[in-house]
């Protein structure tokens, strides 16, 4: 079973992501902010990380950069959840090392579509 780390400081978002992905047969680990996400990523090996951008205690971009410095996470796909799809956001996301981005709010089918695509 593939393990997905979902990092978001909004409980609503975490619950939604976890519900959608667990319903599709994935195992989901949750973290409330970047710092906790880094801890969780360290403790468990994940096949995919989905992280929010704007969070207290380490934002999403910093988390992506930190993960990319870890040996185990050099090649693990990382998706950024974002409220905007501006060029600026994309440039920052790409520079940090993220694999892709997903605009919120998203519908469950889209989330699943992206996840399946990057995990394939």
């Amino acid at each position, binding site marked *: 079973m593939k393990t997905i780390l979902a990092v*978001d*400081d*909004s*409980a*609503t*978002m*975490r*619950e*939604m992501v976890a*519900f*959608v992905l667990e*319903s*599709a047969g994935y195992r989901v680990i949750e973290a*409330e*902010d970047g710092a906790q996400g880094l801890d969780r990523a360290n403790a468990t090996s994940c096949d995919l990380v989905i992280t*929010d*951008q*704007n*969070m*207290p*205690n380490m934002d999403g971009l910093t988390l992506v950069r930190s993960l990319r410095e870890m040996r185990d996470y050099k090649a693990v796909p990382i*998706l950024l*959840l*974002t*409220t*905007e*799809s*501006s*060029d600026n956001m*994309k440039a920052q*996301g*790409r520079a940090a090392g*993220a*694999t*892709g*981005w*997903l*605009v*919120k*709010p*998203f*519908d*469950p*089918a*889209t989330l*699943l*579509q*992206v996840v399946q*695509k*990057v995990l394939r």
Partner: protein
Amino acid sequence: MAIDLNRFIATFFDEAQEHLESIEEKAMLLDSGREDPEILNAIFRAAHSIKGGSGTFGFTQLAEATHVMETLFDELRKGRGKADKDTVRLLLDACDVFKAHVARLKTGERGADPSMDAIRERFARFTVGSAQSDAPSQDASASAPTEESFFNAVAAARTETFGLFDDEPATPKATGAQEKFGFFETPVPATGKTEQSSIRVSVEKIDRIVNLVGELVIAQAMMQQALGKQNSSEDEHLTHSLSTLDRNTRELQQAVMSIRMMPMEFVFSRFPRLVYDVSSQLGKKVHLRTSGHETELDKELIELLIDPLTHVVRNAIDHGIESPQDRVAAGKPEMGTVGMRATHRGGSVIIEVSDDGRGLDRERIIAKARELGIPADESMRDEQLFEIIFEAGFSTAKEVTNLSGRGVGMDVVRRNITALGGSVSIASAKGEGTVITIQLPLTLAVLDGMIVSVADEQYIIPLEFVAEAFKPQAADIKSVVGQASLVAVRGEHLPIVRLEDVVQLPPTVEPRPEPLCLVVEVDNRRAALMVDSLIGQQQLVVKSLETNLHRVGGMAGATILGDGRVALILDVASFTRNVGTRNMAKAYA
């Protein structure tokens, strides 16, 4: 995959509530002049988070309004403009409107809410008028989404929503909508609420367990009593099992009661806003200091405590704290302090509300007391004199304000607290301040009671009101024509209250045993309650009369005794209030 988003709505409502409380708290920090960029960031993130969630569930008005709020704070946190008093006012007003709106949404109301449009307008004007005019920025539109693009984005985001950096050119959705904004996001410091080690349970479920455990305790007591009548020492095994059952039942009861306990945080958290509103209305500067947030108290008491405490705090600001000019003239710091402190002491919770204001004014109390026909003079000690404040109709406020003088005086505060089985006292020093101390039991569901009897009836007196018991000598009892008889207790004369009169038993002709007197004291008023005999003391499960039957005058509730009989719990305050004498011994102590 069809997923009903509604299953997450409850989480969103809780989260929105937390965010709004956090915004409120941060707004007041802003007002206190703290220049911490993290405050602006936190407000921005909270607004952003609510916006995101609202969008997900289609709460358009909330999404729109939090969007303009977010925009304003994005500007402020980037140093374009400065948050001032008006910003704080707008923020607090917005929190009120948003809270009311969320409450509407919770009930399923989805119609347009005009107050939301109004507050959105205020934010929109504010962004332009105040923050940006201070330091107009060229690139404001680049960093903050404009109204227009934002609302289009809601629709756009649904159709074109993701991309992978590897296959950027081939990404299916790269269209003009690209420049616009997607919707959801999140922030705000997570609270303990989301800890994995906790679950949410409805209060009804807990109350049902509390109730069942209460029944269990009663059944257990009945069993013990029934077995006690037989020669139980015959069966050592049974005796042992029974004492194990007794211990486990009590532990279970305590454990269940602890579920109902809530930290004082729930009470304290609403006061910063109250203090802010009241003090700014009165043109005073007040700092609120709270401590003992983690002190736990039964949920029911927590809820009933809010009104009396609100009144006491309003009083402290209105009557206690002086105007900034007066304070400076008196050599005090311009900003007054109101303190709220909660601690556990024995089986009680003590809540102190203190202020460093002008203190109680003896002369004014004496003058007002005389006006009301309450005996008072300069020779009275502070403790005695200040007790007068708790008399009905007493208020030294020169004029009725819409803050403190809402027809509710300290007498009502005391009555409310007494009804909860607690007490209120006051201490004050002129020019230095006042401390109101409220003592409450930890819970209303169980109480330690003294079982007494008169004729063949048994009644319960809450143990906390019983000061002592004694057998009066005939010589100590004095009958005064036209007044209740008195009994002398170590030089003090207490009015005698006969239990049979309180419970209105028909007069009997049978000879009665020699009576016993219990000295009962509530709110500093003492009386001697005359009963036939004392049966013993016991921890009792309180059953509400109102819930199960109807209110009975003079009774605070009922319980079921070990022998299965129902016994009424006396409302001691109801008779000490009328006949009790003030505890002079204490006043002069």
